């Protein structure tokens, strides 16, 4: 299971990953990391069976955790097909169909969350955990 971990400026200097490994005994494989002075983002790979425990530990330490293997969802019935989400998607997972309906290709989605905020009618959701 891939997890996206976001660290805010208050916790970014703490050795949270090391602590979590020690406390849970689960190896966290870091796939991608972006650390700046005010924020940090890590993508880690966690064995499926330990995922829940690791997520709980990280959340207690104020890390913002998103599960990346669960695709975003869109309530199609309530979508107004405005297209506000189309051009903000960095990987082109959202596009217009021939009849100007907006379609999502979940397999392309990298769960960046940009479209979630962009939707004016709030029909796009990232998985809760």
């Amino acid at each position: 299971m891939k997890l996206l971990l976001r660290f805010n400026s208050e916790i970014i200097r703490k050795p949270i990953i090391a602590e979590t490994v020690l406390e849970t005994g689960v190896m966290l494989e870091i796939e991608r990391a972006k650390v700046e002075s005010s924020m940090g983002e890590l993508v880690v790979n966690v064995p499926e069976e330990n995922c829940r425990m690791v997520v709980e530990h990280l959340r207690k330490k104020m890390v913002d955790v998103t599960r990346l293997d669960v695709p975003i969802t869109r309530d199609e019935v309530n979508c107004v097909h405005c297209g506000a989400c189309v051009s903000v998607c960095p990987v082109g997972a959202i596009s217009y169909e021939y009849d100007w309906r907006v379609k999502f290709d979940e397999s392309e989605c990298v769960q960046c969350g940009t479209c979630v905020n962009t939707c004016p009618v709030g029909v796009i959701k990232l998985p809760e955990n």
Partner: protein
Amino acid sequence: MVKRTIEEINEKIRDGSVHVITAEEMTSLVQEVGVEEAARQVDVVTTGTFGAMCSSGAFLNFGHSDPPIKMQKVWLNDVEAYTGIAAIDAYIGATQISETKGIEYGGSHVIEDLISGKEVTLKATAYGTDCYPRKYVETSITINDINQAMMVNPRNGYQNYNSATNGSGKAIYTYMGTLLPHYGNITYSGAGVLSPLSNDPEYRTIGVGTRIFLGGAPGYIISEGTQHNPGSGFGTLAVTGDLKKMSRDYIRAASIYKYGTSMFVGLGIPIPILNDDMAKFTAVSDADIKTTIYDYSVPRRSKPALREVSYEELKSGMVDLNGKEVKTSSLSSFYNARKVAAELKSWIKGGKFFLSSPAENLTRQSLSKPMKESQVMPLVKDIMVRNVATIRRGFSVDEAAKKIIQDRFNHLPVVDDGGKLVGIVTAWDVSKAVALSKRDSLEPIMTKNVITIGPDDPVDLAVRLLERYNISALPVIDGDKKVIGIVTGEGLSKLLARGVQK
């Protein structure tokens, strides 16, 4: 030459022989058979749009309570509605936001809830009079409990609207949606070929009293809209309709991220083909409808215009901007605009909707003036610190440290050999570098995406940028990117404390 009157068309609607097509179909038809033949065949062309139209709302009459109340303030689901009218009338505006939920829920959501038949909490306060003694009322109502619910939208259906992009280094959140940094995307809002006023650009058939489709119900144009500016192709409409008859398919609440609430309004106007000219106007195509792409990162009244673009290009999904292919997307639903035009067409064909002659034509002379400001706003150049110390990019961290101590500046803009701004270092960056023994060059420690401001920008803008990006200083640069001053948060607060008024 075809000549037809509205009465003749209405007669055809009555006897079922009327020929109606949508504006999109008309464009193809004229391309196939020519203007004259199309004018001969077609009686009515229907248009449609479904965009976020902020300037919308509804007048509601709640009926009298017992004892009665002269509402001085009223809230519907914690969204304040305007009550400076008679005792129990109020106007709920689409962009008024909830006092408890913020921009997640606003006037447009109240309207959508009413249309959907949901219960809405009504609270009102008053000062109490002999005839209206009550001072407070709280109740739960649905749209069926209120007397009148009249949608009255002062500015809908822009003939044309700007297209937006963002040339700055950070994402911005505007009423044109999320705009990604470095011209990362372009957004537009308009129905192009289906746009009502673009199909009658000289307002020959559209005027006061024109019967229209509004929110899924019949409605009327009541006058030109606010900010009506036909000279530059920015005509607008003020419209009204019965909220009780509207449908959630055509009225939807919107909450635009970090901006506020707005309302998607489905609006359609039938255009009678009275003669060949009208056939020619309604043959307009996406390629003919042009708009301008503006850089919305400049939060001033005049934004830099980047290029003119047609709806055909915008709808292709990619636009060339200075040699870069930029993704485009719309904020207004073309899918739903088509539904509006098709629905209106079916009403007319089915004999349920008749056309009206305007009581008066819309003016083509109006201009939209900027605000007259009687107080001169202080500009950045009036308050900036001019003798700002800068450092060349090749210098070392130690040299920067010396300069910071010597000149007592916390911020040191970094410039190239030509004196142009390339970065900024702060006292904090420098001490961190010293502590970590990374003293060789400034390059790795400086911030490269510097937020800057111009000397002629208003001080309010400097304050907004400092807050928005959570930074403590802004280098002031001229047109050549040369640093000519600096404004700091600290400096500004001192000035504000002294109550600077130029």
